[in-house]
């Protein structure tokens, strides 16, 4: 495998991370909370698609669409039941609640689907191609993942910049009290943010499990943490930051696994994060926090 293949695989993995990271960063920007259960929503999405396709025999497209709807409902429900009552609580209390939700989802999946890992059938029926006379093979999953991610990111950017709801989201993340005074319904806006984040997680799960087919109750945790790191990497709260952070993280991970060490790939990702944060303490595109005395 050549460098270019690794690079393309890295971008592909990175765009999945970017989509998950968008969920983290939008929720953080608006609700100022770290939603640790986000990674597990991905796992739930994976299991929904898996069940629909293997037991009910639905077509992949339909299965993914249903998964998106169900994950959106799940995200909004989690927000309404577990996080909404804690709006004014200290952030650590919300963090622990999020961890509780994460345990809950993992153990529910464990109960329903058992401890063994399932083999996910790819939802992408695109054949692999090879460029440059067979020297650069590109899998069908990669061919679909990258454009899908680009389209989603453009759509999301337009949605946030142009639509009323999108601008309400920006307003709430800038200043909650002022947004309320301007007539923004904060609770509704936060719910919408969770809905978008969870829908993105469902799409990410379809793309990710098509490439990495191992599906178990904990398989959402590590991508979740990495996407969280990608969000911090790009500057948490910043949407373009999450995209850049996700893609960079994917590239670094694949390249370091290919050229340095397979087992230490994760450690290298974390090390790069630490170095970036030491140079730029609020991430690549993070805002400088000015503190008033």
């Amino acid at each position: 495998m050549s460098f270019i293949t690794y690079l393309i695989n890295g971008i592909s993995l990175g765009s999945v991370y970017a989509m998950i990271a968008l969920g983290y960063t939008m929720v953080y920007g608006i609700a100022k909370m770290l939603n640790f259960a986000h990674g597990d929503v991905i796992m739930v999405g994976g299991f929904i698609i898996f069940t629909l396709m293997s037991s009910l025999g639905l077509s992949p497209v339909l299965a993914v669409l249903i998964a998106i709807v169900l994950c959106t409902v799940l995200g909004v429900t989690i927000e309404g039941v577990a996080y909404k009552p804690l709006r004014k609580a200290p952030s650590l209390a919300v963090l622990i609640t999020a961890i509780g939700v994460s345990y809950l989802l993992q153990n529910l999946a464990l109960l329903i689907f058992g401890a063994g890992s399932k083999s996910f059938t790819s939802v992408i029926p695109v054949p692999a191609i090879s460029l440059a006379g067979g020297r650069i093979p590109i899998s069908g999953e990669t061919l679909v993942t990258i454009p899908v991610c680009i389209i989603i990111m453009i759509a999301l950017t337009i949605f946030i910049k142009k639509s009323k709801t999108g601008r309400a989201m920006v307003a709430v993340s800038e200043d909650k009290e002022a947004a309320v005074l301007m007539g923004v319904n904060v609770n509704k806006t936060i719910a919408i943010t969770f809905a978008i984040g969870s829908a993105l997680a469902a799409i990410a799960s379809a793309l990710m499990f098509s490439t990495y087919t191992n599906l178990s109750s904990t398989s959402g945790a590590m991508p979740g943490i990495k996407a969280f790191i990608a969000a911090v990497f790009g500057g948490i709260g910043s949407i373009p930051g999450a995209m850049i952070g996700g893609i960079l993280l994917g590239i670094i991970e694949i390249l370091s696994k290919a050229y340095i060490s397979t087992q230490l790939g994760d450690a290298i990702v974390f090390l790069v994060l630490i170095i970036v944060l030491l140079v730029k303490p609020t991430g690549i595109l993070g805002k400088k926090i000015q503190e008033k005395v």
Partner: protein
Amino acid sequence: MKKNILKINKSTRNNMVTIGLIVIAYAICQSMIVTGNMSNLLQNLLVSLCYYSIMAISLNLTVGILGHLSLGHAGFMCIGAFAGAFFSKSMVNTIDNTFIRFTLAILIGAAFAGLFGVIIGVAVLRLRGDYLAIVTLAFGEIIKNVLNVLYIGYDKRGIHISAEDAMSLNLDESGVVIVKGAQGISGTPRDATFTIGVILLIISYLIIVNLVNSRSGRAIMSIRDNHIAAESVGINITKYKILAFSISAALAGVAGVLYSHNISSVQSSKFGYNMSIMILVYVVLGGMGNLRGSIFAAILLTLLPEYLRFLRDYRMLIYAIVLIIMMLFNWAPACIEWRKKFSFKNLLGSVFRKTKKEV
């Protein structure tokens, strides 16, 4: 008599109560063991109660007293566990006295973890809030991942380290491989006992309490409350942050040594982010900055899943639900109001005296 009690200041009295409770709990446990009233399950858990309690109070020093969220505390425990187990296993034939060997192992574990605490502290403590949290998480994972691939052995020529496999250590015939990559260290002497665990818990508690009530402790808490104000009155923020962070790390190392000498085999994969989170749950549920609460929460939440075993597969599910409900009960405005309405004080108050009408 009454006057004498009053002379002791409040925090000292508070500490005496906590230590008294620990000693009473210890005495009850010991008498239960002697009279044969304690189940095997609980007996096996006793040491783990001690090291989780030590982990909880040491993390409370970072999170509750210094005010920095740390998600990588298990990493320090991992370093302590490996350093202590390495020492004990290589010295098991040299030092016969269990007490001396274990004491040295604890000191070495604490020193290594503390050293890493200083190194990591210097690197990360200028970050703030969630950024600091994520970097501690990253360090915890790095420690876990690196120890997961390391092979360490020794022979007459000294210590050999390799990141590939046991063969590439190039040991001569006298060599022993101690750390075996993903398998970790096995065959550590099981020196940890409940008594030692309780003594270590009390010592750790006293270390933290003495720190908190000292001049340095007040400086540390002033950084938590307002670091700009603290800096402007001349407190060396970096110094005190690193002081608190490294003491917290060293105590986590002690807990790690206890861990590795309790179950005799130790793998780095156990010390992932899940364990750090679990310890953080103890701290938050026990109350930030409240050491006694941390110990209670650690004991309660370690025992809870064990006593939920009759629920079989549902037990972690119930645990998760209990966790969410506890947080909601503690913090949701509706629940707070409900608690105020039905609190013991109020109920007793309404029985014994007329409630004043609100204006």
